[in-house]
């Protein structure tokens, strides 16, 4: 047995984040050695994980978990099987060299400390992602990788291209993540399981459910966005704006593989249907071809590698979709091989860039003497990339071709796609391995020099590993292929991989075809490249351009909508409010068919009619007043009429208060109005007047109709009866209204006096506006003049 899994996993999931917190300080204290020091973290994680190989190869699934959100059934749980262990080893192993490499690559950069923080955080997220058992834990780490990669891609933040790439990656992978979230939640809802290990026990059930299709699609969208499958691929090449260690790590070995990981993980749960097969193989195959072709077209080393990464991801997705035992074993082998050679290749590209100052392959040549170690490492990785024996890449390709030569005719189509795709990627590998190093020396921005040990450690170790791993097929069978393949296939696999060159095997002929095609392409690379460019120019459109178009039209649309809805005109805002209000008042009654009858004219005393008439006259006078004085007086009249109504219907307190308030309102209105110089006319166009009139009548009649409906109900007067019964004997007051105000409902009154006090404060505050502005030098001349006139 390996080390205690709880402790180890706690360490694995927390250590990178803690290290990330401390990284800027560690950087400060250790200076140029920071890379080596910080690499201790991923290295020890790697060693810890190595300890799990034994148990995992015996098909023991290791689980560990901390209670996290029991209230929602989310635990911070992990499980280690072959698949997660392999990813974990790749992440921590390659991560070790990346951290070392970054120490040298970014030496002297003012934000190197931040960089270490981000990359360690990223590493922690990625480890968490592949080790997570709980679906939501997985998702959290999934989005954390989006967030950290956003920060890493935008690391070179002063350039707009870097910012754009970061934004693009965030939108695509973060957005894909949100779709994935819905898929995971639906999966949880359908199965009642929220852990992967639990889901694996219910494998095959989801396919029967009516939600299967949406769930599958949402998961696939999430995975495709992360793993840059066409048509969501465009962000990946742009992400090369990030410093090279980031490209090497995120965009070759780890983050982009998260989607592949997810698909592999979900294969037992969601796979096995025709839809799964066709979606994955078609999109994967397309991505393979597109990635390969576009890679050959590039001349920037990093761009070339980025597009081959696309191709490789497409290949992996295609194989998972294919789903046969051989395909999955091929995928597993290729996954490892690719991580090793692509990580190495990127670091080599970075070393060349660092050593010469350029990454343009056409501007490079003859570096074999200046950079011999780099050259060797480049050749070794290219061997694996091209799939020459004895490299791991060869084994992978053989297994893949084997998968395609088992069955019926569609396999042949896939085989053709694979041969072309692989040939294209081989071309790029060979070009990078030889073109910069052979031939005559070309002038470069710096005098070329070999990289430091920190820069070379990664490429050398990874490329050598990629080459010699192929020799240990026995070990690979038991420790890699059986557990990993078994996890993806969800069945026991007993792999019998061996290194041989058997010409009776059709797979070998497929490999040979690949080499021949690749060789031809290398030979005529310039012609192929210019042909591809012409084709690209003829199309004149890329998804990348499309992204800009989508974003700018989104912003323009948003701008247009916002300008329409929030046009700054209070009158329109009010109109919207009142029209909605009219709908609110009428629609419910119309929909439920409960509009009340229009009631008969009631019997009232003549003085009651009189009060009502005064009110109406006052209101109309307010509406049609020509001068402000008349308007104010009319306002007073309607207010006093209301007071009169209160008095007539038995509310003397209300009447007094209304009377006082109305008096005060009129006084302060008069005080203010005499200082304003206002138009006496109501400037409304006739259409506006009609529109406003219709709206006001609609609202008013709506309120009235609802009131009629309300009055049709018998009012429950138990509260009133209680107040009447207890006011004198218990509350010691005979004015029931006052008792309600200061006793039964005193807290209303408390709030109310707070309102009054706050109004005093608010008015004091607003008065100060002018107090301050009086002393401001450029006083607006017009209102000042008006003020004098008004006060005269």
């Amino acid at each position, binding site marked *: 047995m390996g080390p205690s899994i709880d402790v180890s996993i706690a360490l694995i999931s927390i250590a990178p984040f803690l290290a990330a917190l401390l990284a800027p300080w560690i950087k400060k204290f250790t200076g140029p050695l920071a890379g080596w020091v910080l690499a201790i973290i991923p290295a020890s994680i790697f060693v810890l994980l190595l300890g799990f190989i034994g148990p995992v190869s015996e098909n023991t699934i290791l689980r560990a978990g901390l209670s996290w959100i029991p209230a929602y059934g989310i635990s911070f749980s992990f499980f280690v099987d072959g698949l997660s262990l392999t990813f974990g080893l790749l992440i921590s192993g390659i991560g070790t060299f990346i951290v070392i490499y970054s120490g040298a690559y970014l030496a002297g950069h003012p934000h190197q400390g931040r960089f270490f923080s981000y990359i360690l955080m990223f590493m922690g997220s990625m480890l968490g992602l592949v080790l997570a058992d709980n679906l939501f834990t997985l998702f959290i780490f999934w989005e954390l990788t989006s967030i950290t990669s956003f920060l890493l891609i935008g690391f070179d933040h002063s350039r707009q291209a870097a910012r754009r790439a970061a934004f693009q990656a965030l939108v695509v992978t973060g957005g894909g993540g949100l779709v994935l979230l819905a898929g995971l939640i639906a999966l949880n809802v359908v199965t009642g399981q929220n852990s992967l290990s639990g889901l694996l026990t219910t494998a095959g059930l989801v396919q029967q459910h009516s939600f299967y299709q949406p769930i599958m699609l949402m998961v696939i969208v999430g995975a495709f966005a992360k793993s840059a499958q066409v048509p969501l691929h465009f962000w990946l090449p742009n992400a090369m704006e990030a410093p090279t260690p980031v490209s090497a790590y995120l965009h070759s070995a780890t983050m982009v593989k998260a989607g592949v990981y997810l698909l592999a993980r979900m294969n037992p749960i969601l796979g096995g249907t025709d839809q799964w097969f066709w979606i994955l193989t078609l999109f994967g195959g397309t991505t393979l071809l597109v990635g390969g072709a576009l890679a050959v077209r590039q001349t920037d080393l990093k761009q070339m590698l980025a597009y081959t990464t696309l191709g490789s991801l497409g290949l992996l997705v295609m194989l998972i979709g294919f789903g046969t035992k051989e395909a999955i074993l091929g995928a597993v082998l290729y996954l490892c091989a690719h991580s090793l050679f692509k990580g190495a290749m990127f670091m080599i590209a970075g070393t060349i860039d660092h050593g010469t100052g350029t990454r343009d392959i056409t501007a490079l040549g003859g570096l074999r003497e200046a950079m011999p170690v780099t050259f060797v490492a480049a050749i070794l990785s290219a061997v694996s990339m091209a799939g020459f024996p004895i490299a791991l890449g060869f084994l992978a390709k053989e297994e893949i071709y084997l998968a395609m030569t088992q069955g019926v005719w569609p396999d042949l189509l896939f085989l053709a796609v694979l041969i072309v795709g692989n040939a294209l990627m081989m071309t790029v590998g060979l070009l990078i391995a030889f073109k910069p190093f052979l031939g005559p020396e070309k002038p470069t921005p710096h005098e070329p020099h070999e990289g430091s040990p920190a820069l070379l450690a990664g490429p050398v170790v990874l490329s050598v590993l990629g080459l010699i791993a192929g020799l240990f097929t026995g070990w690979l069978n038991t420790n890699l292929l059986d557990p990993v393949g078994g996890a993806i296939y969800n069945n026991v696999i007993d792999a019998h991989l061996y290194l041989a060159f058997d010409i009776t095997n059709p797979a070998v002929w497929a490999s040979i075809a690949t080499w021949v095609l690749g060789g031809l392409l290398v030979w005529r690379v310039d012609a192929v490249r210019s042909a591809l460019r012409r084709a690209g120019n003829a199309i004149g459109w890329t998804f990348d351009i499309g992204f800009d178009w989508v974003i700018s039209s989104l912003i323009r649309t948003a701008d247009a909508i916002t300008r329409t809805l929030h046009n700054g005109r209070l009158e329109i805002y009010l109109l919207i409010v009142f029209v909605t209000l009219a709908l609110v008042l009428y629609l419910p009654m119309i929909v439920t068919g409960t509009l009340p009858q229009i009631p008969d004219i009631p019997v009232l005393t003549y003085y009651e009619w009189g009060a009502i008439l005064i009110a109406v006259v006052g209101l109309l006078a307010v509406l049609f007043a020509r001068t402000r004085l008349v308007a104010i007086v009319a306002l007073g009249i309607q207010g006093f009429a209301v007071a009169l109504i209160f008095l007539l219907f038995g509310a003397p307190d209300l009447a*007094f208060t209304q009377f006082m308030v109305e008096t005060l309102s009129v006084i302060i209105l008069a005080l203010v109005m005499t200082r304003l110089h206002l138009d006496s006319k109501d400037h409304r166009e006739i259409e506006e007047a009609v529109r406003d009139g219709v709206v006001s009548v609609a609202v008013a009649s709506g309120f009235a109709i609802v009131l009629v409906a309300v009055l049709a109900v018998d009012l429950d007067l138990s509260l009133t009866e209680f107040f009447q019964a207890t006011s004198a004997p218990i509350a010691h007051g*005979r004015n029931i*209204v006052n008792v309600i105000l*200061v006793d039964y409902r005193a807290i209303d009154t408390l709030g109310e006096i707070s309102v009054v*006090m706050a*109004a*005093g404060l608010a008015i004091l505050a607003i*008065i100060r506006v002018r107090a301050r502005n009086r002393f401001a030098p450029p006083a607006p001349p017009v209102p000042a003049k008006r003020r004098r006139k008004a006060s005269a």
Partner: protein
Amino acid sequence: MNTVIFRTVAPGIAALMLVFSIFVLLRGHNEPGGGFIGGLIGASGLAVYGIACGVAEVRRAMVIHPIVLAGFGVFIATLAGLMPLFVDAPFLTGLWWIFELEGQEIALSTPLIFDIGVYAVVVGAVATIALTLENDEEHY
């Protein structure tokens, strides 16, 4: 309106209104009236005084800024509500102390204190508003 007569009579009217307002406040629990109405009457009195004799004069006569009076009102009204805490009763429970003074039954109660608070707030705040508007040139 700013005549000599008005200026002479105004202090008297204002004083009368203030006294009347206190009367209305105190009788409020049993007859129409109470803190609101009383406060509005009192504030109107101050407003009349202000219109007649100027805001500065009112401010001098009041000693404190009227908004402080409002703050005081909210303060004691809430404190009146907090008193039942000491007798294990809920917030704003009316507590009554009824005692006899020269044969007259005098009732002192937290609702009365509360109503006085209401009165103070209304007088203070409304006077603030009115006085502010009467003379917004003054630099507060």
